[in-house]
């Protein structure tokens, strides 16, 4: 199956008033394939939410795109004018559920009025009744009670709000849904319901693929097809989910997967270790491989000087680390 989105060499920096640059996304390439769930995982501040903004064209100053391209349907979307983007791409081709979206519902507006707004914006000829009817059918199809439409946001629980926001974001049947930490504020039972909803949206072909951004690796185990691990603004490893969870190559991915705490029999006897040190400040990221100051396999004279390229180590599995070759190109 084809790629719905192809990003190449994306660079996106924040610029501060003092003229400093925070290199939040630095030379990132990845593709989103039709029918897949792509998980993007990493510690806070690794640039994963920035990547979500770039992929969904919700880049606002002080964030700027400095290079690279994002192709969808053969067009480089980054050079499209804002009006075409807004009419043709946003919500229809790519939709985003931003972090904390459930708290951004207008508290003085019933959900249905919000839905009508969204649909009227995209279909100027649609009547209020039609819009509402469409929303009601969609809510019912996804087994959300349609009484939600008559409610105000404060009358809904956190899990219900998150599901509502997700359904509204997919009303226009976008090809790609980007979900940025949609379940981080929810308890485990509501979290599972939101995940089920995403899987259901895929199954019904309402959406064609999901980019799921999270800091929780165990969650991706249950529904992702591929996982990309980000560190300090770069993708350090990308490959099939099972490979990344059970057999990661990059030293950072290894430490990350072994630092998770899950309630599994036998885990209590193990000593779980944290990754030493803290993620770097992206104003001045370390030279060479950005993970080298924290890396247990650090090679002096190599890792601190050259940037390891992303190279294929197995079928469909790429790693950016000199342990697996890649020196001198």
């Amino acid at each position: 199956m084809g790629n719905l989105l192809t990003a190449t060499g994306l660079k996106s920096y924040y610029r501060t008033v003092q003229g400093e640059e925070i290199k939040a996304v630095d030379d990132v390439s990845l593709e989103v394939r039709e029918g897949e769930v792509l998980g993007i995982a990493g510690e806070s501040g690794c640039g994963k939410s920035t990547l979500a903004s770039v992929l969904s064209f919700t880049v606002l100053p002080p964030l700027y795109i400095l290079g690279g391209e994002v192709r969808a349907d053969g067009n480089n979307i980054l050079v499209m004018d804002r009006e075409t983007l807004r009419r043709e791409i946003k919500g229809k081709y790519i939709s985003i559920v931003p972090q904390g979206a459930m708290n951004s519902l207008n508290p003085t507006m019933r959900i249905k009025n919000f839905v009508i707004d969204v649909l009227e914006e995209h279909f100027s000829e649609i009547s209020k009744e039609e819009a509402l009817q469409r929303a009601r059918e969609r809510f019912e199809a996804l087994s959300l009670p349609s009484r939600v439409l008559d409610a105000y946001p404060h009358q809904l629980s956190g899990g219900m709000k998150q599901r509502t926001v997700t359904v509204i974001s997919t009303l226009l049947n976008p090809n790609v849904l980007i979900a940025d930490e949609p379940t981080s504020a929810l308890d485990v039972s509501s979290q599972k319901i939101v995940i089920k909803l995403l899987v259901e949206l895929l199954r019904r072909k309402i959406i064609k693929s999901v980019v799921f951004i999270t800091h929780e690796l165990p969650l991706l185990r249950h529904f992702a097809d591929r996982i990309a691990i980000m560190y300090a603004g770069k993708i350090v490893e990308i490959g099939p989910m099972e490979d990344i969870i059970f057999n990661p190559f990059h030293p950072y991915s290894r430490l990350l997967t072994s630092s998770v705490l899950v309630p599994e029999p036998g885990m209590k006897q193990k000593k779980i270790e944290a990754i030493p040190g803290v993620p770097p400040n992206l104003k001045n990221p370390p030279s060479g491989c950005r993970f080298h100051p924290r890396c247990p396999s650090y090679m002096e004279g190599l890792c601190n000087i050259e940037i390891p390229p992303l190279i294929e180590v197995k079928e469909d599995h790429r790693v950016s680390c000199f342990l697996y070759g890649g020196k001198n190109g």
Partner: protein
Amino acid sequence: MVEDRELLRVENLTRIFGSGKSQVRAVDNVSFSIKEGEIVSLLGESGSGKTTTARLILKLLPPTSGKIIFRGRDITYVSSRKELLNYWREVQAIFQDPFSSFNIFYSIRRVLNNALRLVSESISREEREEMIKEVLLSVGLNPAEILDKRPYELSGGQRQRIMLARVLLIRPKLLVADEPTSMIDASSRAGILNLLMELRNAYGMSIIFITHDIGLAYYTSDRLFIMNSGKIVEEGDAEEIINNPKDDYTKKLLEDVPVIHRKWEL
């Protein structure tokens, strides 16, 4: 590690908020006890009453009914400043929200100095400075960078570490840790937890974790108390509950936690 002496016992603890129709029984007839050197977790989802239970134990909130017994003494109605200070010397807390736990006008040096003053008035200034530097290093912070900063200049994770540093200075008998790692990345969570567990091993400190993170609870605790709607629905050995949950609510909770070895059916 775990001594046979009881440290804290709560009996039929109840706290009701509101009145009439809108009455909420946040904590409903909860009883349990903790031994010296024991680590337990009060585990539940949001709204289960676990944080209210913590506030009752910390004497930050009076109970509607029930008893709190600390080292054999009924402290439910202790209310004089002096007695409360004595209690807080032995029972300390780390809170969920490090954003609202510190006076924003105080530098970190002052925060930690105040903590030391709670322990003893007689330590000299130089000694205090030394002790503070030592604990900051042990929680993974650089004293030179941190001491003169104010809380709003630090990240959530750093603030949670400052709270840990306070605990290290005061060395209470009992620590109530309310979601202590919620602001800390998964990758450093284990480090903080290991540090807390070492405190138990070194000083016999007891810890009550208040958390919804079953992984955390299982990893750290000797015993678990599962809370739902203000009640304890299941309690027992951590290993036993994780391997063989009995209550329906516990079973559901364990099923919904993403684990690695078993994949969800979606």
